[in-house]
Every structure is written in C-alpha cells, then in structure tokens.
C-alpha cells in the first residue's frame, strides 16, 4: 500500500488530463505556456513548503501509504507531485469557469468557443 497516496495523485492528475483534452483548457491549449505556469507556480509553493519545513512547522508523518522516499529532510517524494496536482486542478477549474462564463454570455454551447481569446 506504499503507493496509495502517490498513485491517487497520479490517477487524479490523469482525470484532469482527460478534462483538459476534452475541453482544450490548459496543456491541450498552449502546452509550453501551461508547462511554464505549472512549474513556476509549483516551484513557488515548494519554496513555501521548504520554508515551513525549515521553521519546523511541517513534519513528515509515518503513514504506511507513502513510498517512504524523501527528497530532503521532512520532504516526501509525494509533496512536489501534490503541488503540481494542486496547480493543475486550480488551472482546470479556473479556465473551465472562464469558458463556461463566456459561453453563457454569448448564449452558445461552450464547445463552439475557440480555446483562445480569454486573455
């Protein structure tokens, strides 16, 4: 069961990819830009995490559902994966909301909107 947490994160990320591909919201719309946004935002959150670890706020638990692989003291392998997932889900929900609001305002089905044009 050591892979339960990591596996759940990866399966959930896969589900986000399906929504992304179906509606061309983020990686399926501008792959390079989406990758840069994701990496930069997750990197910011990781620095935040490392600061918290440095201050002694966060401590790694001893759950049997983690791989036990640590990237740094108190920083399990799962944490950066979680941060990437967090950024991705915020992006999908946010850009999905944008698309739905645009479709509502134009009174057309969301499918008919070009993936561009929401800068």
């Amino acid at each position, binding site marked *: 069961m050591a892979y339960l*947490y990591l596996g759940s994160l990866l399966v959930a990320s896969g589900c986000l990819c399906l929504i992304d591909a179906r509606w061309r919201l983020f990686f399926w719309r501008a792959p390079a*830009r989406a990758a*840069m*946004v994701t990496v*930069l*935002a997750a990197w*910011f*959150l990781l620095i*935040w995490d490392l*600061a*918290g670890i440095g*201050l*002694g*706020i*966060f*401590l*790694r*638990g*001893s*759950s049997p*559902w*983690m791989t036990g692989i640590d990237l740094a003291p108190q920083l*399990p392998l*799962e944490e950066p994966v979680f941060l990437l997932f*967090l*950024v991705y*889900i*915020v*992006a999908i*929900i*946010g*850009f999905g*909301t*944008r698309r739905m*609001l*645009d479709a509502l*305002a*134009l009174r057309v089905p969301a499918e008919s*909107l*070009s993936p*561009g*044009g*929401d*800068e």
Partner: protein
Amino acid sequence: MTYLTLCIAFLAVSLLIAAWALTRAGRLRSTADHIAAPGERRAERARLLRRWLPVAAVGFLSVAVLTAVFDSLLIVTDIIRYDSTLISGIRIGLAPIEDFSYPLAAAMLVPSLWSLLTPTASRVDRANTFPEQQQTGAGR
C-alpha cells in the same frame, strides 16, 4: 515564525505578482487598441479584473472545499503532521486554516503567470481576430 506569518508573507508575494500581471495586461491591451489616456488604462485594468476575478474565486473556493476534505484525510492517515505550537489552531475539518492559503495563492498565480507568459504578438492578433470575445470581456 508561525505558520500564519509564513502564509501571509507568501500570499503577499502572490498578490504582488497578480497586481503586476494585471497592470501589464491593461497596458498592453490599451496599446493594442490605441488608447493611452490614463483613465482608459484604469478602466481597462478594472475590466480585466472583473473578467479574471470569477476565475480565481471559483478556482479557490472549489479547491478550498477539496482541501477541507483531503487535508483532513492526509492528517488522519498521518501523511503530514504540524508542530502544534506553530499553528493558529483554527481548523476547518482537521485542516489548519493556514493550509487554505496554498489554493488561494495558486488561484492568484495561475491566471497571472498565464497572462504574463502570453506572447504580446498573439495577444494583439487575438484582439483583432475575435472582436466578439472582446465584447464578452467587457462583462456585459
């Protein structure tokens, strides 16, 4: 330093990045549309804020609900622990209230970075190609 202070510091940086993105986008759009009066730039910034605030708000609120549920699970399953002397002790479910600043920061950063990384050329092209979507942008 407590967890709350740490979160306020990182949220402040996120807010600065969002303000930078909004100012830059407002300036670029004004230039593309050949309007340069300061009042019109302010109006353009306000329009962009009206357009993007719902995106950030829905993104944050949805993920905050997920945070309350899944953060609690991470704590019950002993995936993460906190030093109880460094957190405020205010919790939603089992999740320390400070943890909700992560989705809040992400909701500010994602649209901001997206806008900052949008090439200027494609922004101008699009402004000319999809006038009907610009209309939507006006929030009417």
